[in-house]
């Protein structure tokens, strides 16, 4: 694997490889000494143009447990409109000898621009770009669903026949996009639930069904119900009238939690707005996987960095220089 830019173009084979390597990584994390020597001498740069403490420390923990040197480059404010350009930042990192760049950026497509521009030879991992994709989040979500479903028997299995329902601001969600493509590739059936204003205007090319009614979606007893964080500033742009109305129609409140099938799990990428899209009861219930998702995130990111930096790098994988 040369880069991880999206799940849209990630093959089933590559996705399963990442998930299976993540299983191995998780096993090592049960040991007393968690650190592996695998990436000793490699440099991983966390290049964050947007604040995201959670994602950054997850990647940092993953890189450090593989013994890589980690440089955190917080470039907030030097992005889109003013200051140092993406090109200059990338070339600076190149000059410093980065082996992998983990990039979080507010502009959709920025990781691809970084990977294909010829500014840098390091492998690029997309840690969330604008409203486009967040592939490691989807991989850790898939890992979590698989683990909950198959337990120790997870290795080598896909998600064939499982039903996953994603609820919330689909339009602006990179988590939703990455999950749609990956879950579909792994054989799951995906349903999106949202106010019509928060679904992209044309999702005819997406392998999903769309539903506006959360009660109906809950009654269908999905295997996993994934609640997305709602940004309160969306109210100002007329996507929905009030917080209260959103919560009432699209929040996972105690009543809906009770109506959910006994084997359904409740997921959330975090950080949660308790009382808005998810009630405390749902967040803290035994069916909630919120903390497992965080733990699994480290294993999945270890797997991605391992495959990027220690795996074979066939010459034909190299992206064309634009």
């Amino acid at each position, binding site marked *: 694997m040369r880069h991880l830019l999206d799940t*849209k173009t990630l093959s089933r084979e590559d996705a399963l490889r990442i998930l299976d390597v993540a299983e191995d990584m998780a096993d090592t994390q049960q040991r007393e000494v968690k650190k592996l020597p695998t990436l000793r001498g490699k440099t991983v740069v966390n290049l964050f143009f947007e604040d995201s403490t959670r994602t950054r420390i997850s990647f940092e923990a993953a890189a450090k447990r593989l013994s890589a040197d980690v440089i955190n480059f917080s470039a907030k404010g030097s*992005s*889109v*409109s003013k200051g140092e*350009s*993406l*090109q200059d930042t990338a070339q600076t990192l190149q000059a410093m000898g980065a082996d992998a760049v983990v990039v979080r*950026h*507010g*502009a*959709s*497509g*920025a990781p*691809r*621009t970084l990977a*294909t*521009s010829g500014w840098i030879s390091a492998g690029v991992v997309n840690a969330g*770009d*604008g*409203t*486009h*994709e967040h592939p490691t989040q989807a991989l850790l979500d898939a890992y979590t669903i698989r683990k909950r479903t198959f337990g120790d028997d997870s290795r080598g299995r896909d998600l064939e026949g499982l039903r996953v329902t994603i609820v919330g601001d689909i339009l602006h969600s*990179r988590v939703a*996009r990455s999950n749609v493509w990956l879950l579909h590739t792994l054989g799951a059936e995906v349903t999106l639930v949202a106010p019509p204003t928060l679904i*992209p*205007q*044309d*999702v*005819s*090319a*997406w392998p999903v069904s769309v539903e506006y009614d959360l009660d109906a979606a809950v009654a269908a007893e999905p295997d996993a119900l994934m609640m997305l964080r709602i940004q309160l500033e969306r109210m100002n742009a007329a996507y929905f009238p009030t917080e209260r109305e959103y919560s009432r129609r699209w929040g996972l409140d105690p009543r809906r939690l009770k109506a959910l099938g006994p084997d359904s799990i409740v997921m959330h990428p975090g950080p949660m707005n308790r009382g808005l899209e998810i009630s405390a009861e749902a967040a803290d219930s035994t069916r909630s996987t919120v903390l497992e998702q965080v733990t699994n995130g480290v294993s999945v990111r270890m797997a991605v960095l391992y495959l990027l930096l220690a795996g074979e790098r066939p010459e034909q994988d190299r992206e064309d220089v*634009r």
Partner: protein
Amino acid sequence: MSPSPQGTTLVVKGARIEGADATDLVIEGGVIAEVGTGLSRAGATVIDADGLIALPGLVDLHTHLREPGYEASETVLTGSRAAAAGGYAAVFAMPNTSPVADTAGVVEQELALGEAAGYVHVQPIGAVTVGQKGERLAELGAMASSRARVRVFSDDGFCVFDPLIMRRALEYVKAFDGVIAQHAQDPRLTEGAQMNEGAVSAELGLAGWPAVAEESIIARDVLLAEHVGSRLHVCHLSTAGSVDIVRWAKKRGIDVTAEVTPHHLLLTEESARGYDARYKVNPPLRRDEDVQAVREGLADGTIDIVATDHAPHPAEAKSCEWQAAANGMVGLESALRVVHQAMVDTGLLEWTDVARVMSRTPARIGRLDGYGTPLTAGQPAHVALYDPSESGAFSVDHLHGRSVNSPYLGRELPGRVVWTIHRGAITVHDGAPVEVPA
């Protein structure tokens, strides 16, 4: 007024005027002196035009020359040189300079810069509103009466969104046979917009520029033009719905004209997939259905002209994140070749139609006397000689302006502009602009 000595005599041998049978032209004193076969003049410069199509010097109703204010992107000199290289004899320069061309002083400066450059006639377009802010009418009459004789007014880059200001502008310019060229874009429906809204924007996570934001403004404007009996020109129309609205308006007798850019005739939103900002443009590249619809609209006369929307930008404005990149692409040097591919090779237009949509009609819409005139004896000598049989990959070597943000680099395009003649003087010699136009 003219910097051209116009002393040289040219004999063009064997050109096919607008695609017709081969003939000769004699050019003397800046005008076409004689058209016929077997012509010669002692001491004349002879141009072998065997197999070349002769078109009336092209006229672009929509060019951004960036001077004054943005000389890092383009100047009047470099932009008009690029125009000559594309076969143009005249360009209309949009007013979004710094300062904005919203006074007689700025438009006269623009005119003078064009005269000094000497490659093409640079015809200034005046801003509709002061500073293109959409609030108060600029001194349209002063620009019309200036030495620049402005007849086209536009806030291009911005829509004249306030319906009352638009109505007044349409009415006011009737006093001097002017026209409002509208950049049709509802600003509220396109806040933060990055590309066409649809299936591709949904996947790429780029904020959408919906077709309705263009169509709703065109619908409003044709009704306003009908109500006040004014002339309206629609800039860079890009959607199938817009073609339908203009077709309806023309049928109803509304005095509306419309333009399409070469890139909207050839490229689709699929180009955005790699986030290569060379394909970022406003209005955005649309769906394949829209490309087919604007081609049909141009073929059946619903769309009157092709205009380039030549929009130069420095490298750093394109070599960055899509969202941070500037809108626009250069187009003067490639326009005729793109029209050749999209319209002539597809059988939708003949060369005489190309002369109409790229020279005659734009000159008429802009009320530019002495351009877009037929290649007959007694007419001004503005000629583009084009070789339709050549083809090749478009490259930076074909660009002659200051910026290289062309979406066609590396793409196979037919044809080559071999000679351009402006006011009887050669501005492009065997494919290359002359150092200093005569």
